[in-house]
C-alpha cells in the first residue's frame, strides 16, 4: 500500500487539481471500508424498495412468478376505492398523531424530572427505559393480559372503582386507544432519553443565571430550556412517527393473527395481510409504497434541515 507522501504534495501544482487528486486517491483507499456495507444497504434496502415499486405496478398475486410485461397503476386505483384501506389509513394517522404527541409531552415531563437534583437518577432512567428494551411480541402478550375482560388488571381496577367492566379489546371505540396507551408505555422512556441528551448539551449557567435573576423554576423551563429542546423534540417526533407507520409486531402479538380486531387495523398490518396471507403481492406492494411515501414525507424535511445546519 502506498503511503501518503504522494498526497502531501511536493509538486507546485494548483491547489484545485491537487485536491482533486487527493480526493481520487482517498476514494480508492476508502473503498475497502465502505464498499461492502454500502452495497448491502443498496441491495437490500434501496434495491428492495425499487423492486417493490415495480411489483406494485404488476398484477402479481397467488403462486405465480411476476410478469413485468405490462406495468400500470391499477393497484393504486384499487387502493383508493378500497374502504378497508381508507379506514386503515385513518387509523394509521390517528395512531401516529396521538401516539407521538403523548410520548413527546410525557417524555418531556419525565426528562425535566430527571434533570433535576434527584437521587438515583441513573437507576430511575434505567427503569423508565426498561419497557423499550422488550420485544413488541412480548409486550403485546403482556398488554393482552392487562386488558383481559375477566381477570385483567385494568378491568380489576375499573370494577373496583365502580366504573364497570369493559371488553377493551373487543370494542372498536376503545381498541385503538388501548393500543396507543400500550405503545406509549413502551416509548415514553425512549423519548425521555432523547430529551435528556438534548438537556445535557444546554450549559448549566443559563439556568443559574436565570435563577440568580429571581426567575421561578417553571418559568426558566418554559422560557429558556424547552425552546432549546426543539431539535430533540423534532428528532424524537420523526422517529416516533416513522415507528407508528410500521408497527406490526405489537398488533400481531396482541391479536395472534394478521387481522387485528375491528377498529385497530392500520396500513402496516393491512400491507402484511394482503401480501403474505392473501398472497395479493402486487396490492400489498402498493400499500407498502404508500407507507414508504408517508415516511418519506416525514423524514425529508427533517433530513434537509439537518443537512442545512451541517449536522450531516
Amino acid at each position: 500500500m502506498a503511503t501518503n507522501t504522494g498526497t502531501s504534495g511536493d509538486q507546485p501544482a494548483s491547489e484545485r487539481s491537487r485536491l482533486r487528486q487527493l480526493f481520487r486517491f482517498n476514494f480508492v483507499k476508502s473503498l475497502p471500508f465502505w464498499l461492502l456495507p454500502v452495497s448491502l444497504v443498496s441491495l437490500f434496502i434501496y434495491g428492495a424498495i425499487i423492486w417493490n415499486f415495480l411489483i406494485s405496478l404488476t398484477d402479481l398475486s397467488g403462486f405465480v412468478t411476476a410478469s413485468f410485461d405490462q406495468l400500470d397503476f391499477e393497484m393504486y386505483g384499487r387502493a383508493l376505492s378500497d374502504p378497508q384501506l381508507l379506514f386503515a389509513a385513518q387509523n394509521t394517522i390517528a395512531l401516529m398523531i396521538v401516539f407521538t404527541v403523548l410520548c413527546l409531552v410525557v417524555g418531556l415531563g419525565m426528562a425535566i424530572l430527571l434533570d433535576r437534583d434527584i437521587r438515583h437518577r441513573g437507576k430511575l432512567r434505567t427503569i423508565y427505559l426498561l419497557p423499550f428494551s422488550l420485544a413488541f411480541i412480548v409486550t403485546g402478550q403482556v398488554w393482552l393480559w392487562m386488558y383481559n375482560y375477566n381477570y385483567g388488571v385494568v378491568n380489576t381496577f375499573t370494577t373496583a372503582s365502580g366504573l364497570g367492566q369493559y371488553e377493551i379489546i373487543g370494542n372498536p371505540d376503545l381498541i385503538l386507544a388501548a393500543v396507543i396507551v400500550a405503545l406509549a408505555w413502551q416509548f415514553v422512556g425512549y423519548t425521555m432519553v432523547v430529551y435528556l441528551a438534548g438537556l445535557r448539551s444546554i450549559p448549566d449557567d443559563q439556568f443559574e443565571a436565570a435563577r440568580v435573576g429571581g426567575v421561578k423554576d417553571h418559568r426558566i423551563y418554559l422560557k429558556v430550556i424547552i425552546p432549546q429542546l426543539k431539535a430533540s423534540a423534532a428528532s424524537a417526533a420523526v422517529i416516533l412517527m416513522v415507528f407508528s407507520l410500521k408497527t406490526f409486531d405489537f398488533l400481531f402479538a396482541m391479536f395472534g393473527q394478521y387481522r387485528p380486531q375491528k377498529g385497530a387495523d392500520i396500513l402496516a398490518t393491512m400491507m402484511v395481510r394482503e401480501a403474505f396471507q392473501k398472497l395479493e403481492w402486487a396490492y400489498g406492494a402498493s400499500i407498502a409504497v404508500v407507507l414508504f411515501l408517508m415516511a418519506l414525507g416525514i423524514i425529508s424535511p427533517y433530513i434537509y434541515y439537518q443537512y442545512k445546519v451541517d449536522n450531516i
Partner: protein
Amino acid sequence: MSSASASSRISGTVMSNVQEWDLRRLLVYTVAFTLIIVFLFPLFVAIITSFKTRTAVTQTLPFVPIFPWQEGFTIAQWAEAFGVLKNGLLNSLLRALPATTLTAILGSFTAYSLTQIKWRGQVPILLLLVAATFFPTQAAIVPLARFWSVYVPLTDILTPLWSLPLLKSYHGDLVALIITDIAYGIPIVTILFRGYYQTINHELIEAARVDGADVFSIYRRIILPMSIPMFAVVFIFHFTQVWNSFLFPLIIMSGSGHAAAPATLVLGGLGQSLEGTNYGLRMAGALLTALPTVIVFIVAGDKFARGIGDGGTV
C-alpha cells in the same frame, strides 16, 4: 408540570421558602415513584401470573402474588415454556450474535471512511445511510421474501455445508436472515460510530499520517482501540434490536413451524390449545423470550440509553 407550578404558586404566598422547597421535593419524589410503578407494574403482573396455576389465575386478583409455599403456585409453566422455546432461544442467539458482531464491524468501517478519510461522494453516501434508517420495513418485505426463497435460495446454494456436523439444511434461512439483519443494521450503527468518530482528536491521526501510516494501520492502531467503548454501546443496542425483531423472520421463515425460527416467532402460538388459553404459560413464554435482553439491559442500561440517545439525534 402544571400541577407542580400551581402548587408552588399557592405555597409561595402562604409558606416560607424552605417549606416550599420541601413540598416540591416531596412532589418530585412522588411523581418519580409513581412512574416506577407505571413502568414496572405490567411486568410485575406478568411475572406473578407466570407462577400461578390455571385455576389460580382465574381465582386470584391479577396483581396479588402467590408464594412458593402457597396453594396455586407452580413452576410448570416456566418448564413448559422453556421446553417449547429452547430451540427458538438458541436460534435467536445464533442469529443475533453474528448479526450484531458483523454489523458493528462493518458499521465502524463505514463510519471511519466517512469521517477520517476525505473523498468525493461522501455526502451522498451518508445521506443514503441516514435516510435508510427511517424507511418502513414493509416497503421491502415482498421483494425480500422472494429474493431469499426464489432467486437466492441459500438452503440449496450452500448444500455442501449441511453435511458438516451441527449444521442442518434449515440453517440456510437463518443465514439469509442474518444477512438481512446486517444490511438493515448498518445505517444506524454507522451513524452511531460516526457521531463518536467526529469527536476524536484529529491531531493524533494527523500525526500518524505524517509518520507514514496508511488508512489501514490508522484504523487498526488508533481508531479501533479508541472505539472499544462505542463497540460496547453498539453491540448492546443492536443485539437488542435483532433479538426483538419479528417481521423479518416471519416473512423469511414463513411461520413458527420453521426449525430455525427465533424465539420471537415461536412465542406467537404458545399457550393456545384445546384446553383453552393458558395465560400463565403465555406470560412465562413472553418473559423467557425477553430475559436475555432484560439481562443485557440491567447490566448495561446506560450503554443502551446512550445508543438510543445518540441514535435519536442522528
